[in-house]
């Protein structure tokens, strides 16, 4: 899993997405207006295989339903062979030209949306998140965030293979108690942008915390797809980290079993008496979590 613990507004917040959308539409229009392919490569292969299978089934079944499936299959086969889809065209969808240009400075190859309910008010959560230096306390692969000024911060994360990745980010949109949106600045190891929304949950159930994040992974979209195929789903890490945030905020600690005994760590025969005082002086492993507990007590 990687740590592009960053989020970006893809929808839901029109003002922050305005410029992005403009750019996306321009690049898409070239393909959708003309008669070129508007279906991505993998989708084309899938369409062709699926279409072929449906036709095969239709030929065997010879029923009315079979004929309908056969027609659908023919449509898919056409879509696969030509890369053109009338339905996509009608709706203005284009999956062929999604990442053909490496949009300098625009994070969009990987898009993640996750949300979680936390038993605290939007104002409290906003305050916690707005201090970006809090983020590494629950984002597992984020090493540090250092505040440069009110809007800018320096982020250090651990990437795939333990590689350190750094970037500067700026907050480009925020609304107290509701929204924080940020994006990486020029010269970043990874182009990324993110946002977090704090919506009051109904009937005093706390806050719906909604995170979106966009980034361009090193190696481009193909690398991201490859990682996904082999189980490194970045969305999972975001979800995991949001759970850690919830645990930290609601309970003051993040549950763990790291460091507990098991038969995998064998000992010499004990005397039966527990070593007294051995633990008494020990600072709890997650003392940082303790301070969060006090903060939210």
């Amino acid at each position: 899993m990687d740590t592009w613990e960053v989020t970006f507004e893809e929808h839901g917040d029109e003002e922050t997405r305005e410029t992005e959308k403009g750019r996306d539409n321009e690049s898409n229009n070239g393909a959708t207006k003309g008669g070129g392919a508007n279906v991505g490569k993998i989708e084309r292969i899938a369409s062709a295989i699926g279409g072929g299978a449906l036709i095969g089934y239709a030929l065997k079944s010879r029923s009315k339903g079979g004929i309908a499936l056969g027609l659908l299959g023919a449509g898919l086969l056409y879509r696969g062979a030509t890369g053109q889809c009338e339905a996509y065209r009608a709706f203005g969808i284009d999956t062929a030209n999604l990442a053909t240009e490496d949009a300098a400075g625009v994070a969009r190859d990987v898009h993640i949306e996750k949300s979680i309910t936390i038993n605290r008010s939007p104002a409290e959560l906003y305050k916690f998140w707005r201090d970006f230096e809090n983020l590494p306390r629950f984002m597992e692969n984020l090493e540090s965030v250092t505040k440069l000024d009110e809007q800018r911060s320096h982020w250090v994360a651990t990437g795939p293979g333990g590689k350190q990745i750094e970037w500067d980010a700026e907050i480009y949109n925020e609304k107290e108690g509701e929204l924080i949106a940020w994006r990486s600045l020029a010269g970043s190891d990874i182009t990324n942008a993110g946002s977090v929304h704090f919506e009051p949950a109904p009937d005093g159930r706390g806050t719906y915390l909604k995170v979106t994040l966009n980034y361009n992974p090193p190696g481009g979209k193909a690398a991201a797809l490859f990682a996904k195929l082999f189980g490194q789903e970045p969305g999972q890490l975001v979800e995991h980290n949001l759970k850690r945030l919830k645990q930290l905020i609601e309970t003051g600690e993040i549950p763990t079993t790291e460091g507990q005994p098991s038969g995998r760590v064998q000992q010499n025969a004990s005397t039966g008496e527990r070593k007294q005082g051995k633990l008494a002086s020990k600072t709890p492993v997650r003392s940082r979590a303790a301070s969060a507990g006090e903060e939210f007590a």
Partner: protein
Amino acid sequence: MKALCWYGKYDVRVDEVPDPEILNPGDAIIKITTTAICGSDLHLYDGYIPTMVKGDILGHEFMGEVVEIGNAVTNLKIGDRVVVPFTIACGKCFFCQRGLWSSCDNSNPNSHIAEAIYGFSPSGLFGYSHMLGGYAGGQAEYVRVPFADVGAFKIPDGLPDEKVLFLSDIFPTGYMAAENCNIQRGDTVAVWGCGPVGQFAIKSAYLLGAERVIAIDDNPDRLRMAAEEGKAYTLNFDDVDIFEKLKHMTGGMGPDACIDAVGLEAHGTSIDALYDRTKAALFMATDRPHALRQAIHACRKGGTVSVPGVYGAFLDKFPFGAAFAKGLSFKMGQTHVHKYMQPLLELIEFGQIDPSFVITHRVSLDEAPEAYKTFKAQTDNCIKVVLKPGQRGASSNGNGNARAH
């Protein structure tokens, strides 16, 4: 310290392992005075529960004395005598605050594994697979208890361990199973499985006002306990056609509520039971729902099927049509143990129930592997085994004066 560790199917051993330490500010370390082997431990012993790792410490029914607390613990002090619920719950989340303690959102560090199978994750449990947290269990000399402020329940002096130990699991589990039946005056409740949970379900059903409880099993010792201790009518499924008999006993109507206190390893002699065993043996199905199927089939129209028995994943040939046609209600799930600690402790204090009646065997921790074998085989009249980690060396086992009944 010594702890009972799991190494695979039918392979548990007492190992020397490191002592537990405080890992989080809400933790407490408990020196265990009495612990027990639960029927659900047999699901682990039989290799039915996925995500176990060799060396995992088992045990989720335990009590003892607080010997250390983390710096955020406010409800406990060193020396307190406590019983620990087997479900680990934070006390702060949406679910805990609504009394759904076994659905705690914050106690399972491996929630993503459970989510992959169940959509959402239940709470963490002690000694019950990594999918449910991977927490070291309490068949040991010491244990770490997370969220100890709500997860370690203080017991007044004067009540012996054996009277209160089962507040950790089987008494609340049997009680919740009966409570879930929504028992009305005149109701007949049928209970499949006369293991310890079944025994407590029988007693609890009467406590909650059932007119009559019918207990079903094929183990004569367990049926005898159900009859003598629980005052249940008993049916041996080797001898009678359960459905016909239940129908006959209820004037052709069927029991008002049916409790499946058997769970995923049900055995039986009917065709569908053999079919289940074959499929499970071939890894084509994970659970053998024979008792549950029969409970659904036998339940009266508009009745309730209550399931304290543990199920893991997928059921095959589940009679959902019967459930629909009869408009049954289903209630199930891991016990919200925390919710029941205080009210059930009061029942014990007022002498309305003495949970120690289920105990048949008392052994030292060293003898636990042998006790698993006996409990699994249901030999030597074995119904409930308690372990005394403080007791060293070989102790009296099984026959003789070690037995309660």
